[in-house]
């Protein structure tokens, strides 16, 4: 399940929803990303998606993760619009038969979402506002997954 929403994320409710009635899976790993204040330099984030295009991109990513790590189910919820420091910006959950697959699936999804997903993010702060691009650490994180020729274009 993939969802983009402007409303705040109730992470506990999302996780409960994902786990509800599941006797078939051995483990669920979830990750929640929060907007940082960067020592007062960020008063808010403005996140823009391309409706339809962004969901399709995430759907393709989830398919790759599901195949690579034998995930049984996934849940990706991403905020758009105005986000204040401390608020959840992204929630990812992966269910698998064994915990290792679930951990790696969530890790893979987040590294790709952080560096490549079609979002445009503007940072607001006391010094003004500016659009931000992925940091070099985000690309280094992505490199960890290039283990086969088919991933060379990641």
């Amino acid at each position, binding site marked *: 399940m993939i969802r983009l929403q402007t409303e705040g994320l109730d992470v506990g409710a999302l996780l409960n929803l994902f786990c509800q009635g599941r006797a078939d899976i051995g483990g669920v790993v979830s990750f929640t*990303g929060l907007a940082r204040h960067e020592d007062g330099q960020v008063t808010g984030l403005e996140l*823009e998606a*391309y409706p*339809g295009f962004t969901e399709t991109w995430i759907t393709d990513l989830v398919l790759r993760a599901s195949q690579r790590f034998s995930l049984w189910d996934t849940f990706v919820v*991403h905020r758009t619009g105005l986000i204040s420091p401390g608020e959840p910006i992204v929630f990812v959950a992966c269910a698998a038969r064994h915990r290792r697959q679930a951990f790696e699936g969530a890790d893979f999804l987040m590294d790709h*979402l952080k560096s*490549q*997903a*079609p979002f*445009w993010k503007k940072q607001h702060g006391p010094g003004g506002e500016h659009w931000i691009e992925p940091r070099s650490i985000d690309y280094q994180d992505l490199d960890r997954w290039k283990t086969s020729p088919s991933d060379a274009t990641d």
Partner: protein
Amino acid sequence: MVKVLLFGPLRDLAGWRERDFEGAADLSALMARLDPELALAINGPGVQVAVDKAIVRGSAQLGPRTEVAFLPPMSGG
């Protein structure tokens, strides 16, 4: 009529997010109709073009209800 969408810094530069253009049969014709400063930015590094939500490279024919999106470098989530 072609629907043009701008995102991120391109939207700020142009001062609009969505606009309809008449009589642009292909991408080159559409680019010629845009404000020169915006067209220059679109030709800058890392800007991708999506036609009906699919990335295209080079030229592309545009139909009467085509949606063209100019996508500057993405920030990630």
